């Protein structure tokens, strides 16, 4: 008698590795939206906060001259925006009731964008430097005051206020 018997068989599991069609290049994508905020700001620094000229013989020292004052300007503004540094004196040089006109206190300056020379004023801010666009700028300013025999004795003071404007 003939018996047909099936043995349970699973011979192989063939994984199609290496098939060119199965392994065509696959890609996946994603994206990120990036936002950077750049706001207006201005920063001004002076290397000196005080200038003090000791007394001197007018025949020997005809002009009081300061050490160079380094002026650092940093500004962020709109494209094409004007950046300006101005100086306004608080008044004339004053010692009690005696004065020396502040417009005799002059300066020379160096550095790109800085006014080469100027005179201080107590009513109208004087422009020390102008630039266009954002950026940082550095220059130096040297202040001078004639030393005249005509001055009355005293300790004369004035404050110079620097203003950086970046719209």
């Amino acid at each position, binding site marked *: 008698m003939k*018996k047909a018997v099936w043995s349970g*068989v699973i011979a192989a599991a063939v994984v199609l590795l290496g098939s060119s069609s*199965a392994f065509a*290049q696959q*890609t*996946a994508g994603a994206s990120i939206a*990036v*936002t950077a905020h750049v706001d207006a700001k201005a920063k001004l620094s002076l290397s000196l906060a005080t200038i003090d000229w000791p007394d001197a013989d007018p025949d020997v020292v005809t002009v009081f001259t300061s050490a160079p004052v380094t002026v650092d300007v940093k500004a962020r503004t*709109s494209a094409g925006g004007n950046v300006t540094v101005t100086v306004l004196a608080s008044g004339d040089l004053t010692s009690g009731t005696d004065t020396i006109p502040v417009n005799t206190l002059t300066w020379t300056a160096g550095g790109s964008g800085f006014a080469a020379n100027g005179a201080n004023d107590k009513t109208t801010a004087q422009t020390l430097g102008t630039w266009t666009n954002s*950026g940082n700028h550095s220059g130096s300013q040297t202040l001078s005051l004639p030393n005249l025999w005509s001055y009355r004795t005293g300790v004369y003071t004035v404050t110079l206020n620097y203003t950086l404007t970046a719209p």
Partner: protein
Amino acid sequence: MRGPRPAHAAGPAFPMRLTVPVLLLIVLVAAGSAPAAQTSNATLNASINSAARLSLSSAALTFPDADPDTSPSIQAAQGPITVTAKARTSPNGTVTLTVRATDELRSGLNTIPASNITWVASGAGFTNGTLSATTAQPIATWSGSGERTGAHTFFFRNLWSYATGTYTLTMVYTLSAA
């Protein structure tokens, strides 16, 4: 179709009350005692095609304004971006992840080069880099199939020279499994 019943079989092959489990038992016993066997092979084909999947923990990246003197490099407000890359590829096939900016950082007519955005990466296969609007930059490379996770922390170079504005761009990530 069944063959003729043996001559000695006087009655029906199975009593009417014989149940199916009993039938199976009989067949198995017969198989165990058979001196010869016939085999047959069955082939199972499992197709595993290449595939790639990419996910990012954030869809937005923001750099807040800051003083360039105190923060010359601004970290993105979202912190590290987690990247999960899943890929099926051929054995030792190359899996690459790249990123490219769609444009420079732009605010109206003003631009800041996309290269002012950099990243520091962590995770096996991930590398540090600099964004570009012209060339896709590699973020990570691996070999073979698998799931990988890493993170990048993005930084924005903060300069005084930038014109004011709100600058935007889109970073496009591409995961390729060859």
